[in-house]
């Protein structure tokens, strides 16, 4: 038993994929994705997807790091166990500058990496697209477009002829195996 996931078409160059993506978008498809060996410059605009949201996670991480750094220094050197060093104030935002500077960067970096994972839905080791017999080539030199069955505009025959028209090669219906 298996269910249809989507129809895939292979393109041989970044240019072919780029042109095709624009046309798929203007045709009104919404549930589709390109699989490419490289980040294709300008493909986001072609596909109509906006800017990545990763910076929000970076900012959140950075702010957390900054306050964590400030807080540990204040708590440790001036609240929990006040340390007299050279008769200077117990706390000042100046002297622990390297500490919160580094923690801002550290937490922002974690925010960036985990934000990227979160937005990409990773780790996810099972995905229907892995069932494509030649999926491995998308990491090498082939460009794949998959229009999902879920797409409201999807129609077995129409979508097939449309992808062929765009110059897509080796059209394959990706099927997701379902365990009973």
């Amino acid at each position, binding site marked *: 038993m298996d269910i249809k996931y989507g129809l895939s078409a292979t393109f041989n160059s*970044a*240019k072919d994929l*780029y*042109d095709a*993506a*624009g*046309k798929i978008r203007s045709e009104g498809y919404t549930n589709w*994705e390109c*699989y*490419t*060996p*490289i*980040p*294709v*410059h*300008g*493909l*986001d*605009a072609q596909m109509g*997807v906006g*800017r*990545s949201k*990763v*910076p929000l996670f970076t900012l959140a991480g950075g702010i957390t790091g900054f306050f964590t750094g400030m807080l540990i220094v204040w708590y*440790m*050197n001036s609240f*929990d*166990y006040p*340390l007299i*060093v*050279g008769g*200077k104030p117990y706390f000042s935002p100046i*002297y*622990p500058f*390297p*500490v919160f*500077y*580094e*923690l801002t*960067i*550290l937490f922002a*970096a*974690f925010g*960036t*990496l985990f*934000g*990227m*994972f979160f937005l*990409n839905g*990773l*780790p*996810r*080791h099972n*995905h229907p*697209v892995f069932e494509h017999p030649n*999926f*491995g080539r998308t*990491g*090498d*030199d082939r460009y794949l477009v998959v229009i999902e069955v879920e797409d409201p505009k999807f129609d077995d025959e129409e979508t097939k002829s449309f992808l062929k028209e765009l110059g897509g090669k080796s059209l394959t219906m990706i099927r997701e195996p379902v365990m009973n």
Partner: protein
Amino acid sequence: MVTRVGILETHIDMATLSETKEIDAQPEIMSKVKPAPWHDEPLVLNKRSFHWVTEKICGIVEGKTPIWWWWCFIIALFVASFTGMGLLYLVSTGVGVWGNNNPVNWGWAIVNFVFWIGIGHAGTLISAVLCLLKQKWRTSINRASEAMTVFAVLCAGIFPLFHVGRVWYAWWLFPLPNANAIWPQFRSPLEWDVFAVSTYATVSILFWYMGMIPDLAVLRDRATQTWRKVVYGIFSMGWRNANNHWRNFEMAYLLLAGLSTPLVLSVHTIVSFDFAVANLPGWHTTIFPPYFVAGAIFSGFGMVLTLLLPLRAVFGLHDLITQNHINNMCKITLATGSMVGYAYSMEFFIAWYGANSYEGFAFVNRAFGNYWWAYWIMVSCNVICPQLFWFRAIRENIPLVWIISIFVNIGMWFERFVIANTTLSRDFLPSSWGYYSPTIVDIFTFTGTFGFFSVLFLLFLRFLPLMPMAEVKSVMPQADPHGGKVH
């Protein structure tokens, strides 16, 4: 004015719309002045295909382990054992087995620490700073350099860790609750160092790992053995080359580059604070932070050349690491080497101009005092040697470039030796003067770190892709979605 708008329109058209209009973007003036054609060197030679790049890089990991690899690995492991034995002897006997003592309490431990940390800086410069500066040639050298960074920082970490004396209390460096109910003192540069170096190590590993995910996915998809599928599968996190993945990945990569840039500048700055915040003549100078950062990048590029030139020859990577790459690396070495030379002379000038007799003595003593030999090794390796890179013939002579890169490494080790030891051995009172020599344990422990570094680097070569395939491919002409048209 009209032509200007024309250019802008073409730009927007090309970037956002699927149909590209043919607009003559050439401003009129261009036909009059006839500019010389700008010739961009291709970054990948011999018009290689994407598939060739994949085969080349994956082939190194997937092929049979070469015999030379085993020989190098065994030798590296043997040398690494020196560090193991040195540290075992230190811990079981006591800190007295190292040569540092009053008045030179830092000795080789701090010298080696600063040396290794500095090596790491070139990797971050290549992966982060050159990324922000859109230097496309960085793509083929950044993975190996980042690996170098991570391993160099690990080697560096050994020294302060064991220099604390009772290594089992080293966790007191971190702000963790302990039985004495006291906390670290955050006014101390040594405490700042704990944060700087541990952040640097962590962020370098994150950056290195994140950049590797798409390549690990390629290895996963090509794998034939189960263990490879499983291991590369786990570490590639289920990456599937989707445009949405790339979109977030590229943004994250850019952000990490943006975060690593101030980080790398801060790390050696804070390392230099270990010296500059102390009130000792020869250390207490404001030039230290920029001078240390320039020196770190200089030494790091020396190490990058030392590592990459043999790799290029052994794995036949001449189409990916071209003469142009080597030229660029040589030029950066030359530029940073000149900055270091400038810093050396500026230190002398300020010591004289500042009219502080202790400061003046510290510098005269550096060049002509008890460690004069170390000073002149430093000057000849760091200031004179890299000046040879002004000449094209030398930059194109690969064995010579490699030898110069070794001299750079030696010179930069001596720089730290000179800074740490000349000042400590000759401070304010002649009654407290001394002379420092390393013991055999010092020498073995340090030599062993080269083995430790090599072991890690050889494992990296064997199991991980040594070049970021996706990044190398994206600077090739085939990656252009406009089919090679100027946009």
